């Protein structure tokens, strides 16, 4: 007896409803004509002898939102953290393959990791503002790069907060402690903080998973606006979210050796309506994961 198939909604109809979501949200051309911003070539990551992810070949286009989806434990976040070398911090983690930003390898010898992270910012799963004032949170990055003139900092802070759609809510309380903000506001503050150093790419690791639906909606809206200025790579558990915000989608799976790998990569519309791979189709239609 087929006990796997307990989904009352037939897959085809579910796919159609997802496609509806997509045609609403994608008001720009999802075309692959935009220039390439980042690329991974045969990227893999090992913890000691254990290979956590492998054979990752992705092409991330400029001013687009690229979503990474897949079941838990498939290495989505691990791959994301390879993209700005945050995995350097993990003891005995080793990266193989290449990650290119504008054609040059981030893992080449002599590359300054501080420089890499300046160009490729990151927003984390849980909002993690510094225990400082709202102003100082945003000004932290510019100060790192030696900007100390008050007038310039004021401008950067206002600009970043405006871009993160937070300015109107906090403009009268910039000196308040960041912890006084709500979770959603804190996450937008973290986005503003990342924007303040003018990165070219922003990596987002399930940025809305700790937030309520309204705060999630605002973050998604923000992501769609931000792609005009930066390239965004977002890891998400939520397939609807990927469908709503992204232009291209990478689908990851985990094999029987617990290694994560890339199953399919393509325009979001295609992944969600006409996936080429059987596994992608099964996952998208909710048959597992």
């Amino acid at each position: 007896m087929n006990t796997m198939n307990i989904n009352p909604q037939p897959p085809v109809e579910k796919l159609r409803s997802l496609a509806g979501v997509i045609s609403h949200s994608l008001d720009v051309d999802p075309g692959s004509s935009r220039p390439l911003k980042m690329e991974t070539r045969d990227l893999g990551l090992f913890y000691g002898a254990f290979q956590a992810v492998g054979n990752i070949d992705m092409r991330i286009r400029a001013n687009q939102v690229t979503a990474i989806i897949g079941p838990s434990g498939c290495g989505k976040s691990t791959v994301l953290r390879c993209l700005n070398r945050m995995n350097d911090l993990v003891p005995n983690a080793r990266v193989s393959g290449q990650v290119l930003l504008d054609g040059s390898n981030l893992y080449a010898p002599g590359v300054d990791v501080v420089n890499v992270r300046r160009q490729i910012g990151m927003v984390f799963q849980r909002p993690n503002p510094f225990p400082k004032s709202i102003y100082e949170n945003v000004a932290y990055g510019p100060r790192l790069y030696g900007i100390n003139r008050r007038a310039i900092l004021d401008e950067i802070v206002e600009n970043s907060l405006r871009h993160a759609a937070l300015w109107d809510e906090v403009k009268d309380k910039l000196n308040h402690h960041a912890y006084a903000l709500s979770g959603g506001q804190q996450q937008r503050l973290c986005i503003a903080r990342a924007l303040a150093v003018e990165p070219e790419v922003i990596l987002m690791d399930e940025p809305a998973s700790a937030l309520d639906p309204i705060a999630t909606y605002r973050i998604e809206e923000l992501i769609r606006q931000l792609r005009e200025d930066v390239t965004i790579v977002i890891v998400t558990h939520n397939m609807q979210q990927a469908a709503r915000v992204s232009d291209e989608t990478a689908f990851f799976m985990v094999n029987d050796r617990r290694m994560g790998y890339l199953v399919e990569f393509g325009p979001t519309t295609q992944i969600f309506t006409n996936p080429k791979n059987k596994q992608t189709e099964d996952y998208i239609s909710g048959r597992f994961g």
Partner: protein
Amino acid sequence: MTGRTLSNATNITGVSPDDPPTLPRRLAYIHPRQSHPRRAVNALMLGLTGLMTLLALAPLVWIIVYVVARGLPHVNLAFFTQLPRPLGMEGGGVLHAIQGTIVLALLSSLFATPPGVLAAFYVARYPNTPLGIAVRFGTDVLSGVPSIVIGLFGYSLIVKQQGHYSAVAGGLALAILMLPTIIRTTEEMIKLVPANLREASLALGGPEWKTALSVILPAAANGVATGFLLAIARASGETAPLLFTALGNERYDIGAIVRGGIAAQQSLGTILGRILNQPVDSLPLTLWKYAQQPYPERVDKAWAAALVLMVLILLLNGFARLWMQHRASKMRG
């Protein structure tokens, strides 16, 4: 289809609604009876533990009451503001020891805090490197070294080289004593700082040292200060390391040194040198010396010094603990 999957699920668990769960009744005989020996044993043991708790607390209460009773009558303004008078004369105070205690506390903090805090950062960041392991092992061993041995170390390192006892030597000995406490508490506080704060700073392109200095240290500052207070409290009560280093000095008066220095138009460096580079007294050192003397007025002074010292250390400890609790509640909230 839905109905079929439902009935399927019912079959899997193997429980049907007509079959309510029942508990075995075989254990019913232990239901409490009024006069069970277990209750008497329970009461006895409870009484015993209560008694032992009181017994353990008794010395503390006794010490406090006794020291207050013997010391309080001799604590007056002169005790804090005057130097000792010659033997046989009434009055006078222990201003020299109070000043010496402050100078020693400042010097030892100055010597111990920078290396202690930085070492704690290293150990917290690289716990499993050979140096990290060595430092941690070292602090454990150091905290077990008898304080008189540390005094001897200060003696051979500074007193013997310089040819005289000094506040600097005493401060160094106390600093060595404070190091393990500072390293350990600072390390614990650094570990309490959420890792994602560090990641946030590094993801902005912050170098490690800047992250440590402007994100982790401020976040851990309250805890670091608490550890520092505990270390000071411990060092301020020590006598043994000072016997070989600070020695004691009944004529130590910073006010007189400064006034004399200004009158002789000495430079700031010279005056500071005269304050730091001569033997000093401290409250526990004075207490130790006065208590051995056969003159009642000196013994009275020793009791008063004991009271002042005890209050000082209790205050420091209490303050540190309050601070720690406040900090912990803030971390949770």
